[in-house]
């Protein structure tokens, strides 16, 4: 049976996530393309998933009993690539081929990349696919859990709500959706572009068991993921409050960094800031 690697604890996850932030920025800088802000906002969530939660084995990526992770907000693929490489699905050096001619590391997730389960990038698709996987897991013969990461701007796509209805109707308690709720999308604040609030109430009304958490507080995140499923017979929703551009002060909460690429001096400043954060860890939360 595949397992998460030693189920890393909060302190180790936090240190690792800090390192991976720098790797994301270097990869995007080299590629000259990428979704910087959203990759940094979901990076802590991906780190805990791949280094604590998911029962997966990079040596056996096709194990039928493996847990599945679907990234519905496919544009934050740089964070996913960096975390997959850190988990051993492919060599770190491959990250330097991001968006290059014929590289498997395409600008949105594809199954060409080891460890990726589904091609995403058009928004509003992932949760239906995840629900289908969760149904498949329940039918057997291999039970497993399914995790799906959604963006908050993405929730304006109506298909998400078809999937939300379906998962609750079919009582998929092996399915967990995580919302990277950074409050921003490409044009600006989600509230102003198309208000999706109140999110927790909406998901509860759709039949999901909801927990709201600080999406950068590893202590809380570990406890939350460890408590899954939140209620028998119901799909679980983790509403993770996050900061777009998290970890680099001049990128934080700036819609402009949605897909802006750091220039040489910006990259240097960002890496220096991440290094000083690593030396003196900030208190949890924000």
């Amino acid at each position: 049976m595949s397992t998460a690697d030693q189920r890393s604890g909060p302190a180790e996850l936090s240190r690792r996530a800090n390192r991976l932030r720098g790797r994301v920025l270097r990869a995007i800088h080299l590629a000259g393309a990428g979704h910087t802000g959203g990759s940094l906002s979901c990076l802590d969530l991906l780190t805990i998933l791949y280094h604590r939660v998911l029962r997966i084995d990079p040596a056996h990526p096709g194990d039928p009993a493996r847990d599945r992770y679907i990234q519905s907000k496919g544009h934050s693929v740089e964070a996913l690539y960096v975390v997959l490489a850190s988990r051993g699905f492919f060599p770190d050096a491959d990250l330097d081929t991001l968006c290059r001619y014929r590289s498997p590391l395409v600008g949105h997730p594809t199954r060409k990349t080891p460890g990726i389960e589904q091609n995403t990038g058009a928004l509003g698709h992932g949760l239906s696919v995840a629900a289908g996987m969760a149904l498949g897991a329940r039918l057997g013969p291999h039970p497993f859990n399914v995790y799906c990461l959604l963006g908050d701007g993405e929730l304006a796509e109506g298909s998400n709500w078809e999937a939300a209805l379906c998962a609750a109707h079919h009582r998929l308690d092996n399915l967990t959706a995580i919302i990277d709720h950074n409050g921003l999308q490409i044009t600006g604040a989600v509230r102003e572009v198309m208000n999706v609030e109140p999110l927790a109430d909406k998901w509860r009304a759709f039949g999901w068991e909801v927990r709201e958490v600080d999406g950068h507080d590893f202590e809380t995140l570990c406890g939350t993921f460890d408590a899954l499923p939140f209620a028998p017979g119901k799909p679980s929703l983790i509403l993770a409050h996050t900061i777009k551009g998290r970890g680099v002060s001049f990128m934080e909460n700036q819609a402009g960094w949605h897909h802006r690429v750091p220039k040489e001096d910006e990259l240097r400043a960002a890496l220096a800031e991440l290094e000083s954060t690593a030396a003196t860890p900030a208190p949890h939360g924000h």
Partner: protein
Amino acid sequence: MATEVAADPAHGLANQDVFSATLLELARANPDILVVTSDSRGSGKLVPFGRELPGQLIEVGIAEQNLVGVAAGLASTGKKVFAVSPACFLTARSLEQIKNDVCYSDHPVVLVGISAGVSYGALGSTHHSLHDFAALRAIHNLTLAAPADNWETRGAVHAAAAAPKPVYLRFGKRPVPHLHCEPAEPFAFGRAYRLHDGDDLAFLATGETVPRALGACRRLASEGIHARLLGVPTLRPLDEAALLDAARTCAAVITVEEHSVHGGLGEAVASLLLHHRLAPAFRIVGIPDEDTVTGSQEEIFNHYGISPEGLAQTARDLLRP
């Protein structure tokens, strides 16, 4: 080469009924075969399936986008999934899910468009699917088939169940005549079937227009015009050898389909022939680019010349020097 088969005019069942009966047989023997429906089990003739194998039918309600996404997810776990919904909704509402979740992600889902073409003729264009071949031909990694009769339907369902890649099947809801009697070989995707012999002109027809083209061949035969009929159940991959042979042998080629004249069988054949420097006298018969007339499937076919006499007249006009 196409296979020669005889034709029996006796009426069979609706292809949709044969689809559901065949699927039930297969699913009894294979618990990994699943059907996903969008409140469509009645129109898909799947009520007996759901009654007998309730654990193998998954209902998602009137939500076709979710239908296709769920089917892709299920297929990724090793299930053989048939996603069944009226063709008009399945191939328009869920087109992006077909493109990304099934074809691009390469999950071997069988997409089943029921009541296709103008099966729902009287219900208006919301319920017609005259765009599906065009839309789906431009999407990579999808076999496309529109069986003409019960034998082709049964064969296509078996072939789809065994296919390691995504498949789209398109069925109508009216009883259709038998066209294949004691075929020498099993149905296979990518094969055309010779249903009438002749070298003067060739009809290349697909789906439920094939019996009309056969009627035209018989009328023309009584006038001394020898028409070949190739049934083309698979639009992708095309049986290029059989189609090219028809175009090389016959002075005229007429394609016939229950689809817009844009983007379907006709334009696929035209492209094939031009690429091979073949330019026989040529007509695409289908539903023209206009506000589609409403009525029964039969009435709509007759209105647009998809009838034995209409097609025979198109042939006479095309052959006239």
